[in-house]
């Protein structure tokens, strides 16, 4: 029996041990992010981008083009109660009463009907709504099988092949952004048009919005139109008290909007 291999092992170990502090010093000098970062194109790395949307409420004319485009792009059922995105018409009356209706893809009430309500109305406006792609999503937390999840770029998706249709996430969403697709019996919701944004296109609703009330971009990227919107407006999110940290930002949002 020779001692050779054992000493060899020990020697090698000691040598490696000596290298360790040197390597650690090197990493701290260069910075660990640089070593881990993808060498080719930074925005192509889903780790380094965070998609978000801005909605300028004072620009929304309630035409519902976004709703129609969303349904066409994502094969959403045409019935007026399946929406990935929808537009709400808020009406605040003189006596403080607030009425909200989802106008879906049309302006809902005809001009004549609106005229009749004129005596009651104090102010009125449209608010587009969609999944808020929360940074702290309650729907993901409650999914019993891991069929809904947050991607690395911050988008909340549903894996419809894996969803068991228990509807727990639909209950958990504080924004009412989810519905059960009766064809597949699985939960469905806005994906920020994930198949478009990953190819550099805009989400369908942003693409067709005639007044550019909807703005899409990456958080923390200075060249993104969202950055300009965030710079020029005071922003709010929906239900901030729930600590869901939404990534859909609203400007000129009325205090009555829930």
């Amino acid at each position, binding site marked *: 029996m020779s001692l050779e291999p054992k000493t060899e092992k020990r020697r090698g170990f000691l040598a490696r041990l000596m290298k360790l502090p040197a390597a650690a010093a090197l990493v701290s000098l260069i910075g660990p992010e640089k070593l881990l970062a993808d060498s080719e194109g930074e925005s192509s790395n889903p780790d380094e981008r965070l998609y978000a949307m801005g909605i300028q409420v*004072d*620009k929304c004319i309630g035409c519902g083009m976004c709703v129609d485009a969303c349904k066409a792009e994502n094969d959403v059922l045409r019935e007026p109660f399946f929406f990935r995105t929808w537009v709400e018409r808020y009406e605040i009356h003189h006596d403080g009463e607030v009425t909200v209706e989802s106008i879906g893809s049309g302006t809902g009430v005809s*001009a004549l009907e609106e005229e009749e309500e004129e005596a009651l109305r104090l102010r009125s406006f449209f608010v587009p709504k969609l999944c808020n792609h929360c940074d702290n999503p309650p729907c993901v937390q409650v999914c019993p099988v891991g069929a809904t*999840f947050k991607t*690395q770029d911050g988008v909340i998706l549903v894996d419809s092949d894996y969803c068991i249709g228990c509807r727990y996430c639909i209950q958990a969403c504080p924004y009412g952004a989810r519905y059960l697709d009766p064809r597949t019996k699985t939960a469905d919701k806005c*994906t920020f048009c994930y*198949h478009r944004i990953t190819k550099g296109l805009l989400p369908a609703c942003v693409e067709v*919005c005639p007044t550019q009330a909807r703005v899409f971009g990456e958080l923390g990227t200075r060249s993104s139109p969202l950055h300009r919107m965030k710079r020029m407006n005071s922003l709010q999110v929906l239900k901030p008290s729930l600590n869901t940290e939404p990534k859909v930002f609203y400007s000129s949002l009325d205090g009555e909007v829930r």
Partner: protein
Amino acid sequence: MRIWKIPDQVVRLAILFIVAIVALVVVRQKLIPESFGELGHYRAEAVTIATELPIHYAGLQACVECHEDTGEIKAASYHRSLTCEGCHGPAADHVEDPTEVLPLVPGGRAACIRCHGYRPSRPTGFPQVIENLHNPMEPCMSCHDPHDPTPPEVPESCSACHGAIARTKSVSHHWSLDCETCHEALPEHRESPRAFLPSKPSGREFCGQCHAADATSSSEIPRVEIATHGGRYLCWQCHYPHFPESR
């Protein structure tokens, strides 16, 4: 002879445990999808599936690549912020096969009224018409080119655009006043309304020309002490000039 022997009941239990563990491993292998847990508590494959869904809206860039001339006209008009597919429908199929699949060409009034019909909930300043009063039955396109909607003949009267204000004023005590009495609008305002905004009166003295106690206007016009009436408020903070008797 061995001093100790594993008792029979322990052996049987051990066999049960081994069977259970093997079953667990096999079932886990079978039930948990391959890519589960690669990126988090979900199937990494689902992300790939989500990125590979078909695209229906080709995007403005794809349209103007061929329809360059129309794109240029539109880009210089008030419809510059619109995308082609908003009115013409999703056109990715048309981009794939330009001759066989033709996009929608909307006609009539409905497609325009959708955005430009008057709704009180719409933001002030967005161009709207009351569809039953603005040339009813006439298709919009007979006067407005949708790619450059400014009509070739600019309107002569203020009420052509400011219809709601004109109608309100017509039933108020100010019905006999012309818009020019209070607003000074340059002729360019008719062609480029927002670049050349008309003037608005800025002080109490302006209303005082008719309503001050010492004004030389007709004695039927109500008079107030223009320096003190209403305290620190300006006239139009209480009286809407187009309908001054309203509250």
